[in-house]
């Protein structure tokens, strides 16, 4: 019996960073249900997924980067520019599959180049991805300074398609793509050599290297993957808004980092999960929905609440790390 208790303890401890955000999300959602009519519905839950899909996709890539001990500040700019590339190609009559392929190739290629710079010039990820952000934003502005509507029939079909449920709930294409990428990334992190190398690098890069893990290759791959996720995010942005806009998603990188941290991933690297990030995105979205439902509070309360929650979770992480001696 003591063994069972111990086992349970260690299970909770191992998965605390998933359990804590999940509980917070559930509690928030129930509070919303008590406070507001029509809140505790499948419709609100699925809308949460749709509205936060492109932020969520960036946060998924960011999770992998942060677990490996890095950071990627380019995600917002890459989303906006990918959408912009699709919009411009659509305007000049390029078929949807080709346009999407080119746009995502751009996003992935930029991630690859940033990974190369970080690995081979030993430059800090913070600065390299900052330059990547400037570059992507600049490219977006060069393509067009105003918002470009997307008119292709494929995009319109994608933006209205989805699985409908009763009560007006709908699982949209952006939501499906988001959930699919979350699942794939969860598998990658948990069951592949790539995933294990990510965690090892975040724990201690030098030890990971000395253990014979392919650190250089993985590092380049991590930023490539993050670029790819943001590229998909850009595609989802097009489905969601049917437009491309160079000023879109400003500051999204910081919201993504906040969602990752609230989702229980340690910013020092080596510990975390993409399921937690899914919950972090959900918590952030729920706060926003609260404010919409409440109706009287200013929208500017959203960043304040998110910031406070971020603060709280960082303090919790601190206590957790001190308690388990995970820290260095």
């Amino acid at each position, binding site marked *: 019996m003591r063994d069972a208790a111990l086992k349970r303890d260690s299970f909770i401890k191992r998965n605390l960073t998933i359990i804590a955000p999940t509980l917070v999300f559930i509690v928030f959602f129930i509070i919303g249900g008590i406070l507001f009519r029509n809140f505790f519905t499948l419709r609100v839950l699925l809308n949460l997924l749709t509205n936060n899909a492109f932020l969520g996709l960036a946060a998924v890539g960011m999770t992998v980067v942060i677990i490996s001990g890095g*950071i990627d500040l380019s995600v917002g700019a890459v989303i906006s520019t990918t959408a912009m590339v699709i919009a411009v190609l659509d305007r000049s009559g390029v078929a949807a599959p080709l346009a999407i392929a080119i746009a995502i190739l751009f996003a992935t290629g930029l991630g690859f180049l940033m990974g190369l*710079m970080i690995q*081979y*010039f*030993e*430059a*800090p990820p*913070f*600065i*390299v991805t*900052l*330059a*990547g*952000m*400037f*570059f992507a*934003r*600049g*490219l977006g*502005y*060069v393509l067009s*300074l105003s918002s470009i509507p997307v008119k292709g029939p494929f995009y319109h079909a994608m933006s209205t398609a989805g699985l409908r449920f009763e009560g007006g709930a709908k699982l949209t294409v952006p939501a499906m793509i988001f959930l699919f990428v979350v699942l794939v990334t969860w598998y990658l992190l948990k069951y592949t050599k790539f995933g294990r190398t990510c965690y090892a690098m975040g724990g201690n890069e030098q030890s990971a290297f000395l253990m014979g893990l392919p650190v250089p290759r993985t590092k380049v791959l991590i930023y490539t993957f993050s670029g790819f996720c943001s590229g998909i995010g850009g595609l989802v942005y097009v489905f969601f808004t049917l437009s491309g806009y*160079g000023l879109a998603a*400003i500051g999204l990188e*910081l*919201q993504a*980092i*906040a969602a990752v*941290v609230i989702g229980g991933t340690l*910013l*020092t690297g080596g510990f975390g999960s993409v399921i937690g990030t899914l919950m972090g995105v959900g918590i952030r979205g729920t706060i926003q929905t609260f404010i919409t439902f409440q109706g009287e509070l*200013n*929208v*500017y*309360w*959203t*960043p*304040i609440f*998110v*910031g*406070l929650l*971020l*603060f709280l979770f*960082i*303090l919790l992480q*601190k206590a957790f790390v001190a308690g388990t001696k995970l820290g260095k």
Partner: protein
Amino acid sequence: MNKQLQQGGDFSARLAAGIKSIQWPLIALGMILLFNLIFTEGFFEISIQNGRLVGSLMDLLKRAAPRLIVALGMTLVIATGGIDISVGSIAAIAGALAVLVIRGGDITYLATQDTSTVSILLVILVALSAAAVCGLFNGLLVSVVKIQPIVATLILMVTGRGMAMLFTGGYVLNYDHPGYKSLGVGDWLGLPIPIYIAIFILIVLAVLTNRTPLGLLIQSTGGNETASRYSGTNTTLVRILVYVIAGVCSGVAGIIFTADVQSADAAFIGLWIELEAILAVVIGGTSMAGGRYSLAGTVVGALIIQTLITTLLTRAVPVQFTLIFQAAVVVVVLMLQSPRVKEMTFKRRARKEASTHA
């Protein structure tokens, strides 16, 4: 007499050493200026209109001033091995609060405003105190709670802009206050006031770090925190202090921004200034790892960025290309600073020397 000479020699030697330590940024700045001297017509022309100096150079210096102020504060933070990404939000808070005080707390959009008679000292005091409190919050999180600086300041970056938006009710608030306005658009002896403010802050920080032990303590904290703590440095206090300085510097920039456009738009005051400031610091040769810094380098770094932007604008390169150019500058600087490239150049130099000896 002899002693005086010696001091003079000491000074010129120190000056030479100082210049040598920032020779690369200086050469880069010189090259951009030389390019303009040859190819950009009228870049160095300065005329006098209504008793003030007018020209591309004046415009450049005026625009560089608030960014330089933020970058100077950032230099000290980076010197302790930290980073502060909340400076833009702190500028927004300070600017929004200042305008709020001028308007007597009235946030009615487009309300007709009488000329405000609020004391300018009170306005500045409120704005800078708020900025100092923000810096104190960052400093406590980093040094006492021991959160990594980028994360600790991320909190205020996310929250701060929301607070600034609340202060202004989300509106672009205009005001009428000649005294406050002059901090942004005024001039004295032909030069714009923001330039004097930037020079004043540069002098204060230079004296603070060169004439008191603070500079040394900052360097030792950034170089090796454990060792400096064992040797008796109160590293906690040093860290708090640099974040407070960075906060106040951002507050000053927020005041200049809102005085310059005679309104407060909380969504845009100081947006992205953290990135420009970090860029200026890195270009100026301060190491991101901490322990080694140069205020003079940061001045040159900020001037390089602003000169580059002004050059592009005066040469009629569309505004949207400036970000790409900035990205290119970062990439070039990073490559020059990278250990791999240094190793390669050293090897080549060593080989050359070996061949000449042989």
